[in-house]
């Protein structure tokens, strides 16, 4: 039996998609460590079946489904941590590598978006998915994905004006 890890390009693919995947997973879980566990499970499952990154909508779908399972399974712990860490978590484990105050304000504005808009925005901007792939990953229509994206940008524009 040939081990899957010997297939050449998993490392390149993973290095390329991991930051975006982690950001996507963190739309549901607060802790970066939990998000990494979810991303690891999803990528391993995905790579076992596919051996390449062509149908990547499935990968994001797997991350989403594992994150939702995680929330359901650990609902009590998640609630406790959410209340305990709500204020300090983003300062300890930020979602972005921030360079200046403008970026901090923009990141804060992104995090204040409704979740359905935020997940489309994250998939589109930081994961370069097409609306068709986003629709497949989230189980919605392409039109819904596109309109959520527009709403997200419009909301961001209201709260944040680039200088």
């Amino acid at each position: 039996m040939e081990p899957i890890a010997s297939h050449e390009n998993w490392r390149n693919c993973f290095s390329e998609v991991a930051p975006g995947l982690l950001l996507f997973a963190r739309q549901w879980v607060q802790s970066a460590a939990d998000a990494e566990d979810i991303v690891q499970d999803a990528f391993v499952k995905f790579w076992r079946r596919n051996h390449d990154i062509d149908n990547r909508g499935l990968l994001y779908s797997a991350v989403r489904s594992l994150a939702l399972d995680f929330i359901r399974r650990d609902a009590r712990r998640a609630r406790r941590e959410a209340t305990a860490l709500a204020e300090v978590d983003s300062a300890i484990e930020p979602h972005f590598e921030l360079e200046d105050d403008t970026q901090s304000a923009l990141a804060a504005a992104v995090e204040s978006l409704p979740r359905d808009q935020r997940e489309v925005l994250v998939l589109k901007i930081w994961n370069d998915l097409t609306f068709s792939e986003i629709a497949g990953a989230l189980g919605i229509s392409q039109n819904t994905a596109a309109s959520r994206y527009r709403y997200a940008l419009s909301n961001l524009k209201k709260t944040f004006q680039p200088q």
Partner: protein
Amino acid sequence: MNDFSELENELKKLRPAQPSPMLIERVGEALENCPASASGAKRKRWRFTEWWRREASGMDGRLVGARDRERTSQTPYNHWWSLGFGLAAAAVLILFAVVTLERRHQQLETVAQTSTPETRAAPLETEQSTTRSKFVPAGGTNVVYNARDEGLHFADRSGRPVRRVRYNKQQTWRWRNPETGASLRVSYPSEEIVLIPVSVQ
């Protein structure tokens, strides 16, 4: 959409936080531990069951219509063939099981008659299992999410006042198994009361 192009550019300048260096190693270990042909085996099994189903129904994978169903019921010899093969396979399996059991029984007897040298096999297995289940500490966090000053108190009947401060914390400890990539995490709330002596002048 063009209205948003400037905003989109600003958003794209934001770089998501990088994963920890351990994550790639963990993924590599997890992929090494799983065989590539797992999905292939599943596919083969599906093909076998599909073939078996087709053989049993006497069809070539077509949808079974009412007329076809009638025809298969009129030609039951296919089922007899299947039944014959099944019975033969079952008989071979039973024979094999009986022979294996007998051989194992004989081996057990010889082990009982001889003595100690072979009894060392068991500790080796347990050693292997303990190395596989070895977890090493991978970090921890101690987050103080609330601190309440409860004012001055006189502790231990002494005349000196102390200030009592109550801290609420969330402690999290992580362990990781470097071989299997499994991780263990314990998270619990804790409370700490600190007494700070106050000097009164």
